[in-house]
């Protein structure tokens, strides 16, 4: 769709690394076109007026002032374009992210439990089932998410701090929750950001399309070390992710 309108490169957005990111970038481009046109249009008018109507050039002002319908047309155009942006882009994109979750058991699933100031990442392991968690089992040095070891499903679970490995070209579902305060899970290249609200488990989904290393940046002020609440995302083929999980379990790197 009218690719030349896509100016996201010039806006300085980071590379896009998920399936939905180009949609957001395109929309971002359109909004910035609207802004640019208004800004340049009025800017040129403004500078012209400043020269044209300075007192020495135009000693008596006109009581009537501006005439014509340009301003009405401008307002009409703004309304039209905004409506088009809403209906054509904003609603569908938002709907896609909020409602069109991948079918159950097709996606790669992880749980992320945020806390001051780390991202605890809980992988279900080979069985694909997350072990039970209980806040009373939480121990900061040995069991940060309170995983119940007596639950058979927990046996092959992996809990890592700040290390998120995701498969490329496969839908990913992340269940976000927080132990203490509000954090915000953001990965700029993914065009994903979701506040993590204590008391709620909020699911998000996306589909990484680009292999590589990215950073999770906490976007919500969460205390003194908010600025370095950083996580790492590695996007790689599914097989490598599976291997990595197994390797971590074997090495006992996890909790």
């Amino acid at each position, binding site marked *: 769709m009218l690719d030349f309108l896509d100016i996201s490169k010039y806006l*300085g957005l980071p590379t896009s690394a998920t399936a939905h990111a180009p949609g957001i970038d395109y929309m971002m481009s359109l909004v910035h076109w609207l802004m640019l046109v208004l800004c340049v249009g009025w800017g040129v008018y403004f500078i012209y007026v400043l020269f044209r109507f300075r007192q020495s050039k135009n000693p008596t002002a006109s009581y009537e*002032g501006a005439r014509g319908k340009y301003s009405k047309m*401008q307002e009409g155009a703004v309304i039209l374009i905004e409506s088009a942006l809403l209906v054509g882009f904003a609603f569908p994109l938002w709907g896609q992210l909020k409602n069109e979750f991948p079918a159950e058991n097709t996606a790669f699933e992880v749980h992320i439990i945020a806390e001051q100031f780390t991202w605890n990442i809980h992988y279900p392991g080979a069985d694909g089932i997350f072990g039970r968690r209980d806040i009373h089992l939480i121990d900061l040095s040995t069991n940060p998410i309170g995983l119940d070891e007596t639950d058979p499903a927990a046996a092959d679970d992996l809990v890592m701090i700040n290390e998120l490995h995701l498969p490329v070209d496969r839908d990913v579902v992340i269940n976000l929750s927080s132990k203490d305060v509000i954090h915000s899970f953001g990965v700029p290249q993914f065009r994903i950001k979701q506040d993590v609200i204590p008391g709620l488990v909020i699911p998000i989904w996306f589909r990484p399309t680009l292999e590589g290393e990215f950073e999770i940046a906490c976007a919500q*002020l969460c205390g003194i070390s908010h600025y370095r609440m950083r996580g790492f995302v590695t996007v790689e083929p599914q097989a490598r992710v599976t291997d990595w999980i197994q390797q971590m379990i074997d090495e006992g790197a996890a909790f």
Partner: protein
Amino acid sequence: MTNTEHDVSGHAHHELSFIRKWIFSTDHKVIGIQYGLTALLFLLFGFGLMLLMRWQLAYPGDPVPLIGWLFSDEQMPGGVMLPEFYNQLGAMHGTIMVFLGVVPLAVGAFGNYIVPLQIGAPDMAFPKLNMASYWAYFLGGVVMLASFLVPAGAAKAGWTSYPPLADIETMGQTMWLFGMVFLITSSLLGAINFLTTIIQLRTEGMTYMRMPFFTWVQFVTAFLLLLAFPPLEAASVLQLFDRLVGTSFFLPSGLVVSGEVLDVSGGGSPLLWQHLFWFLAHPEVYVLILPAMGIVGEIIANNTRKPLWGYKLMIYSIIFLGFMSFIVWAHHMFITGMGTALSAFFQITTMIISVPSVVLLSGLFLSLWGSSLRFTTPMLFALAFLPMFGIGGLTGLPLGLAPTDIPLHDTMYIIGHFHYLVAPGTILALFGGIYYWFPKVTGRRMNDVLGKIHFWGTFIFMNGIFMPMFIQGLAGVSRRLYDGGATYEFASNVIHYNEFMSISAWLLAVAQLPFIFNFFWSIWKGKETNENPWEATTLEWTATPTPPIPHGNFATTPIVYRDPYEYSVPGEETDFLPQNQP
């Protein structure tokens, strides 16, 4: 009420003690000046906090030069700023600028001084209440300032004070809440007073559609304050209970802080606070911008020597804007996990509210067409306001659309967006207002050369600070980062702007020196003027002598015969016809 003439002489001889005249005064003009000076000091203080922060952002971890040793070990051991102090500075900068700086200056000072004069009233409707609202504001300010001194320092959960963080923060947060309660009370009393004054005390002939633009703006602003603040008062009380009594209105069950299960009953909701907070805080941002727009409107009409373009349309836009501002608040909360239907509602209302803003700005732009422009100092500020407001407003659009808000939310882009509105926007307009009305308040003009130096310095350096924020924000750099984003790889190609921005900020501070000097020097030594130096039409300029008489304003109650901006009326001798000219 048989005679409409006020007995002037009787009062002129009546000497009030210094305290009654300048401290516990009930004269709206004195209260306006009190508000003005206090608010300017707070602005300066809030700016000072930011200058410190900008050091840390530009040179993370380097000791602050020259003044670093002034701070305690809890703040800057060895001159190196601690993250907890950075967070205090950020939260208090936001709070002070908004609630103790701009609103008191724009509403408390300008509104108080100008509105009764513009509508031909002898004073505000409730002079004692007016005094009370100033003192409530003052107390609120004292509590906020004192909070820096309590153990562990001032509030550090941002000006938004989101719980659970704010609930588990240190004592400074409690002080913040108490301070807010005072400030809210002050604003409510003020708002009641403004509304009653404008509704009841308009002089004969001053119909609503003859009210100056500035008075209209204050009218709508007062409604916003009156009806939007109480829910935040409720929220503050709830948060105080959470902090002091141990309730959990904003705390859900099952919280684990630092490995310990939090000993509260739970069952609350962190989002409740956000709704109550933004229910106020969105209307509040229009409280920040509308008075500025009013000031700009006055200055533009005066210096273009022609009526404002589309006066009625602009008034309707303001009313509509004020109304709509109550139902857009959750655009600050798109990222909290809002579903499609509700987000659609708030996106629509947000887009709708941008339309009256476009109308207003277009109106002001079009007012310049066919004018005879005088580039006086206030006019420079007013003119600069227009594109700055434009940039700030336009960058609100991608934020108002939920999908594009995803990459931008809580990044420096937001900081850029609203600073363009409040700093090069509102602050410039307020400076313009000071230059414009200074002669009315003091009988003297401020120096023009210094004023122009002040203008260019402020204009250029403000852009130097805030323009790079858009670049950083688009690159994904979060706000409220103690090291300005140095931790993150993806920020590495935009991080160097921090130094440039900080230097601009310090130069901005230098650019304020001519203003501060000019301000005080002109009070005593400025060029004396007559009561209407700008040859303006609105009623405040017809009040003689200048400054207007205490407690009464007008020797004879003025009667209004015409629209507010009758400049360059064809066939008239002068190019301006004051409203009270038959």
